[in-house]
C-alpha cells in the first residue's frame, strides 16, 4: 500500500516538473495556482492538522512574505534573494504571536488568531510605508515565467515531502499527542509549547515563501488581496475538505478547491455563490465527515474489507 503511494507521489512530481514541455501556458498557470494552494494547505496542516491548533490568521504570513519581497525589490534587491528573509521574519513573528497565544486552548486560540490577522490587515492598510491600502507594484523587468513556474512547483514538492517526513518523525508523534491530549503529552515529557511554536514557525516560513513567489508572479500586491480574511479561510478549508492531519489530505483539498474556483469563475451565475459553496462545504464536512475526503476514503476501504473478509460463521 505504501509503495503504491510513494510511486504515485513520485509520478506526480515528475509530471509537474516536465509539464512545460507539453502543456500550454494556460494549463501551466493552473498548475502554478494549484501548487500555490498545495503549499498553503500543507504548511497550514502542520500546525492545524497534525497538532490540532486551528489558526485562522495565516494570511498574515503570506502577506509578510509578499511585502518583504516587494519592499526589498523596490529598493533594488533581486526578488529571489528576499525569500529567506521573508521566511525568517514570518517565523519570528509567528513565535512572537505564539508565545502568548499558545497559552490558549482550542477555539480560544482560533479566535485570537482571527484578531491578530485582522489587526495586521488594518495596520497594513493604514501605514504608508507599506503603500497603504493601494498596495505595492513590483519593479518592471522582474517577470520570468519559467523561473516562477519551477520555483512554485519545487516549493510545493518540498512542502509535501516535508509534511510526510514530519508525520513519520518523533516531532510528528509529539504533535499528534498534543492534538489528542495535551496534558497527557506533557505528563510524558512533551514540551507542548516548544513543539507548537516549532510547527507554527515552520509552517509560517513556508507560507511566507509562497507569499514571496506570489508577489514575484503577480507583480502587484495589496492588503486586500494578501491579508484577506477569505484567504485565511481558504487555507483552512482545503485541508479540512481533504483530511486534516494527513499528508494527502491538503493536496486533495487543494486540488478540489482550485478546480472548484476555476469552474466557479467561469460560470457567471455561480460567480457570486462561492461563499455559499465554501460555507456549505464547511458545514457538510464538519457535520458528516470531519476527517474529510481521506476519512471518506478510509471508511470505504474498511467497508470493502469487511465485505471481502471470509465468513467465519461456518467454523
Amino acid at each position: 500500500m505504501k509503495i503504491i503511494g510513494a510511486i504515485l507521489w513520485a509520478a506526480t512530481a515528475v509530471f509537474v516538473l516536465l509539464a512545460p514541455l507539453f502543456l500550454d501556458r494556460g494549463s501551466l498557470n493552473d498548475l502554478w495556482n494549484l501548487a500555490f494552494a498545495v503549499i498553503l494547505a500543507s504548511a497550514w496542516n502542520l500546525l492545524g492538522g497534525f497538532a490540532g491548533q486551528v489558526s485562522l490568521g495565516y494570511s498574515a504570513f503570506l502577506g509578510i512574505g509578499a511585502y518583504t519581497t516587494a519592499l526589498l525589490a523596490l529598493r533594488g534587491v533581486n526578488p529571489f534573494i528576499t525569500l529567506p528573509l521573508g521566511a525568517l521574519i514570518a517565523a519570528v513573528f509567528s513565535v512572537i504571536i505564539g508565545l502568548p497565544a499558545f497559552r490558549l486552548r482550542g477555539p480560544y486560540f482560533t479566535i485570537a488568531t482571527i484578531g491578530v490577522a485582522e489587526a495586521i490587515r488594518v495596520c497594513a492598510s493604514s501605514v504608508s510605508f507599506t503603500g497603504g491600502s493601494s498596495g505595492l507594484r513590483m519593479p518592471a523587468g522582474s517577470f520570468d515565467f519559467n523561473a516562477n513556474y519551477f520555483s512554485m512547483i519545487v516549493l510545493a514538492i518540498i512542502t509535501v515531502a516535508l509534511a510526510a517526513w514530519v508525520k513519520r518523525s518523533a516531532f510528528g508523534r509529539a504533535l499528534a499527542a498534543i492534538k489528542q491530549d495535551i496534558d497527557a503529552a506533557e505528563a510524558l515529557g512533551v514540551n507542548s509549547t516548544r513543539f507548537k511554536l516549532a510547527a507554527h514557525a515552520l509552517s509560517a516560513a513556508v507560507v511566507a515563501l509562497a507569499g514571496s513567489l506570489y508577489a514575484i508572479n503577480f507583480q502587484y500586491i495589496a492588503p486586500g488581496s494578501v491579508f484577506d480574511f477569505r484567504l485565511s479561510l481558504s487555507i483552512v478549508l482545503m485541508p479540512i475538505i481533504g483530511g486534516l492531519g494527513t499528508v494527502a489530505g491538503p493536496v486533495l483539498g487543494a486540488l478540489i478547491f482550485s478546480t472548484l474556483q476555476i469552474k466557479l469563475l467561469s460560470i457567471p451565475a455561480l460567480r457570486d455563490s462561492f461563499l455559499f459553496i465554501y460555507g456549505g462545504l464547511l458545514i457538510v464536512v464538519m457535520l458528516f465527515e470531519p476527517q474529510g475526503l481521506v476519512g471518506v476514503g478510509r471508511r470505504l476501504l474498511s467497508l470493502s474489507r469487511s465485505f471481502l473478509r471470509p465468513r467465519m460463521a461456518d467454523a
Partner: protein
Amino acid sequence: MQQLTSVILNSLLAAGLYATMAYGLAVIYGVMRIINLAHAGIMMLGAYVTFALFTRFELDPFLALVIVAPLFFVVGVLMYIAVGKQITGGGSTPSIESLLVLFGVWLVLQNLAYVIWTGDTQSILTGYTMKSIKVFGVRLGVPSVLVFLASAVSLIFLNVLLKRTYLGKAIRAVTQNRDAALLSGVNADRISAAAFGLGTAFAGIAGGMLATLMAFTPDFGRSFLLKAFCIIVLGGMESVTGVAAGALVLAFLENGLAAYTSVPTSLQDAVSFALLFIALVAFPQGITGWFARFERRTAR
C-alpha cells in the same frame, strides 16, 4: 471637562449596544458551550431585515425591532434544529468542529445577503437620523440615544426573563453547572433551542440597531463579532453583569482613544483586536473571574 463628559456619555451609549450584541454570543456559549461564529452573519441579517422593513413598509426601524426580535428567535430555534443539535459541546472547551460549522453558516448567510440585496452599501435614513440633542452640554445623535434606550429595554427584559421565569432560571442553571441542572430535570434539548433562539434574537436586534447608526454591506459583521468576543473575554462568558462590564470597558477604551489620542480611526479596530488578544491571554477567566479569584485569596 466637556470632553470627559462627552467621552463618558458616548461610551455609555456604545456600551448599551455592545452589551446587547455580546449577550447574544454569551447565552449560546453559556448553555451550549459552543462559540457561535454565525453571530456576525445574524447581526448582518438583522440589519438587512430592518432595512427591508423600512424600505418596503416604511416601518420605523426601532418599531421594527418588535418584529425582528421574535422573528429571529424563531430563526434561531430553526437553526438549532438544523445544525445546532449535532454540535453541542459536552466538554468544557468548545469543539473545533462546532466552530467551523457555524463559520460555514456565517458564510452562507453572507452569500444570501449578497444575492438578495447585492453588495451595495445600504443605510437607513429616517427623519431623525441627522438630528441630535444636547445632554449635559454634549451633543448626542438621536439614533444613538434611541439605540441606547432600546438596548436598555432589551437588557431589562432579559434580566426579568432570567430571574423570574422558568426558562431563565433553567438557562442560568445550565450555564453554571450543566450536569447538576440536567440531573434536576432540565430538558437540555429544549433549553439549548431556547438559548439559541434567544441569542439569535439578540444578535438580530443588535444588527437592526446598528443599521440605524451606520451604513452596511453583507461583510459588516466581522469587526463587531471580534468586539463581541473582546467583551465576552473581558467580562467572562458566564454572567450578564460581566458582559455589561466588558462592554463598558471596551466602549470607554474606544472613545477615550478617539478623544484623547491621535490614533486614526482606521487603526481603532486594530486596537480592539489587540485588546482582545491581550484579554484572552491575560484573563482566561475574564475580568470578573480574575476578581473572584482575588476575593477568595483574601477570604481566609
